[in-house]
Each structure stands twice: as C-alpha cells, then as structure tokens.
C-alpha cells in the first residue's frame, strides 16, 4: 500500500498520476481528508512556491505541480465536504474589462486552488458589475483582479468604486496583480493586497483571509 506521505513528493514533482494513486489509496484506507490536505498537499505547494521564488522552479514546474495538486484535491473534496471542512476561502478571479491576457490570471488561479482556496474564475474582460455580483454572493470573498496593460489597469479602480457604490466594499477583500501593477498602485486605488507573482499571491490571499 502506498504511504500518504508520498503525496507530498508526487505534488512537488508534478506527478499527477502518482498523486491520484496515493490519494485514492489513502481515501480507501479511511485517511483523514483534512490531514492529507494540511500535512502533505498544502506544504508541497508551499515548497513549490518557495522553489519558484528562488528560481529553482519555473512556470512549467508550477503548472505541472498545480495540476497534480488539483487531481488530488478533486478526489478529496467530496470527503472534506462530508467531514464538514471548509475551504481556506473563496476567491473570485478575472482579468478586468478590456484585458484579454489570461496567462498570469490562470497561473494565480491554479496556485490558489493548490493553496486550498475555492476559486471561481470569471475569465477575461470581466465588467465591474460582475465582480460586484460575485461580492454579493458571499461575505469574505476575495476578489482577485488581473491586468497586463497600463491602459486596462485603471479598470481596477472602477471595480473598487463599483463595490463602494453598491455598498459591499467592506464585505470583500480586493487583491490585484499583473505586469504593470505595483504596491504603490494598490495603495493608491485602495486595494487590500498586491502580489507580483503567482506563488506569492497565495500568501497574500491567506493573509487577507486571516485579517
């Protein structure tokens, strides 16, 4: 029988097949689903993030590991739900209106899923009203806004303004990212969080949930 600890290495090396195999075996052996996530899976993705940030891993490794994580998570989620466990938090992500560049957004979404968040992906070119609707659906939601262009980044401010106008700004957290985005810009428009890469975005989201 495979050891659940192997799940850590399977995710770290992006071996989706192995991750599936170990997870299935662990579930069949009545392993605690919450423990699998907390003890092996999230630490594995944290290590992936660490390696990415110190240039030992690059985007292909990040994506491959995130896929292995997702494979295992999909198997575990029904058992987690049955045991009453909640996801780390809910993130609604999309590129802002006028921006079709989704590579960075997709990377962040994968890493957040890997980090234990429930991720709702609204896709590209998302109007501010859609983010407002998503904000209304559940308190504590994190809205993650992405923009690649200097001309579309200004739409992030429009989203925050629309949240204010709808009276839901205080019910959500807003994090932003994308090539032209800086912490300074996040401060200027009143966003709650900023990350300049997909791996650090997970840490930012965790901080927002904790606050």
């Amino acid at each position, binding site marked *: 029988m495979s050891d659940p600890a192997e799940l850590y290495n399977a995710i770290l090396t992006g071996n989706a097949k192995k991750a599936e195999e170990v997870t299935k075996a662990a579930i069949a052996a009545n392993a605690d689903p919450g423990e699998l996530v907390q003890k092996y899976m999230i630490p594995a993705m944290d290590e992936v993030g660490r390696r990415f940030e110190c240039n030992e891993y690059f985007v292909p490794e990040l994506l491959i590991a995130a896929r292995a994580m997702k494979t295992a998570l999909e198997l575990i989620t029904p058992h987690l739900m049955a045991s009453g466990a909640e996801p780390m938090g809910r993130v609604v992500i999309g590129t802002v209106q006028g921006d*079709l560049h989704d590579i960075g957004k997709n990377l962040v979404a994968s890493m957040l899923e890997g980090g234990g968040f429930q991720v709702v992906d609204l896709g590209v070119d998302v109007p501010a009203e859609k983010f407002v609707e998503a904000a209304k659906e559940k308190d504590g939601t994190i809205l993650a806004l992405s923009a690649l262009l200097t001309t579309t980044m200004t739409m992030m401010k429009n989203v925050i303004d629309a949240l204010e106008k709808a009276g839901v700004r205080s019910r959500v957290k807003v994090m932003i990212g994308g090539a*032209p985005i800086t912490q300074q810009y996040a401060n200027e428009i009143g966003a709650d969080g900023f990350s300049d890469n997909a791996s650090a975005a997970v840490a930012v989201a965790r901080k927002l949930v904790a606050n």
Partner: protein
Amino acid sequence: MPLPGLTIIGESINDSVPSTKKLFDANDIAGLLELAKSQDEGGAGYIDVNVGPRSPEFMAEMVKKIQSVTAKPLSIDSPDYNIIKAGLEAYDLARAGGKKPILNSISALRSKMFDLYAIQPFMPILLVSENVVNGQSQPCRTAEETYAAAKSIVGEFRTRCPGVKNSDYIIDPGIAPLGSDSEGNIHRLLASMKLIRADADFAGFHASVGLSNFTVMLPPKRADGSPVKGPLESAFLTLAMPLGLDMVIGSVKRKYEKLTPDHPAMACLNACLKLEGFDVLMRVREFYA
C-alpha cells in the same frame, strides 16, 4: 546580424522591460537614446518606442529625440489612442528615408486608431489573435477563428483607409509562452499562418510576432549551461518563416538562426507540436531541466 528574410523591430525601448523602465523613471534620456543607437547598429529594421503610461507629449518628445540619433524608421507602440497620435504627429518621415512608421498595434476593439492614418500613413500591426463576438472581445482558440479575425480586421481597415498596399500590412497572429502552452496555442498559431498564407487576398502581407513572449517565464539556461531562450526562439523561426513570418518584435542581441531537426531546441519544439495539454509542458521541461 539578423537572419536573412527577417526584419527585427527592436524591442528594447519599452516601459515593460525592467531595465528600460528604470531609465524612463530616472528620465535618463541619454540612456534611452543609447538603446536606440545600439539597436540600430545591431541590425534592427525598426526601433520600437513604448513609453508606457506616460503622456502623449512625452511620446512625441521621445520620437523626435530618437530620430535625432537614428535614421531607422520607428514602431510607435501603445494601446492608447492619444499616445499613438502624438507619436505619429511627431514622426519625421524624411529623416527615416521616407519609410512609414509601424503602428504597434491595432486590435478589433481599437479600430478607432484607423483614423490616425490620415495624420501620418503607417504600417499597421493588426492583432488577429482576438476577435469580437457580440461586441465583446475574446481570444481566438482555433486557427479558423484567427483567420476569420484577420479577414474581418483587414476588411475594416481597407474600407476605412482605402488604397493601402498589401505590402504595408503586418498581421500579428499572436504568440503565447511555450512554457504555459497547455492549450495548443502554438498549433493554432502555425495553422492560422498557413490559412492566411494560402489566401490570395493577403498576398504580400507581412507577418510578425512578439518573439520574446515565446520564451518568457522559462529559465535562461539548460542544465548543461547552454542557453534556453535563443535556441527555442530560433526553432520557432525555423518553422514559422516558411509560413510567411518575416518580422519579429525582438532583440538584436539574440543570434537567431535556422536550426536543423537534430538541434535539441528544434527537436523539443517539433515534439511539442505532436503533444497535447500538459505533455507539452513536460517536454519543454525535459529540454531545460
């Protein structure tokens, strides 16, 4: 020197290049002009000018200053109408030997830029990797969608700016990073180039891509210390140039070359084209790890 048959639009003067952004932020005009000169000397056919979110007046000033140090034609680069307008107005056609500037770039949702043709005729880079459905822009997922986007935007340009020669058009079918290509973009790109090339309506058109995008997010070196990016970009050129690619927005420092099938980068790209989904990423990883 550039590869025969390939015109390089020198990409260095761009606010999204971190080292150049520093020059912009420090208002180091001499440093920026040095970039223009070195790209000119390095064989660039055009010098791209992207000032980021700075003012139209700044773009105009940069165009004038850059033209004072190079006779190469410029590529005026911004998604912003007013910045492009200022760049075109400042452009000195005679200084560039009568060569029109490139306008980088026009997508279906930015067709207002066609109006600027009246101010200063240009060679438009028409971005055909996105199309408009029900007033909403979306990325093309197939070669057929890309081809249809090309037909549509070229048709609109011809209606609004009649009489432009085919050889003044540049089609950009959109290149995406190989390191995250789990959705077959490289297939779409090459197949769309075949469709465009086979259509007599596009005879004489140029085709261009932002070549550095292809290898962004990959490590600089393979495990044996040899470079990753230049060879993969060369592998792409080896496949795309026979399909009509004759321009790239790229670096004059890269030694672009045609590769033989047994070159590791060529073997990698050819293998990727036969794979799907995450197997592509695994193969790219195998190339460098």
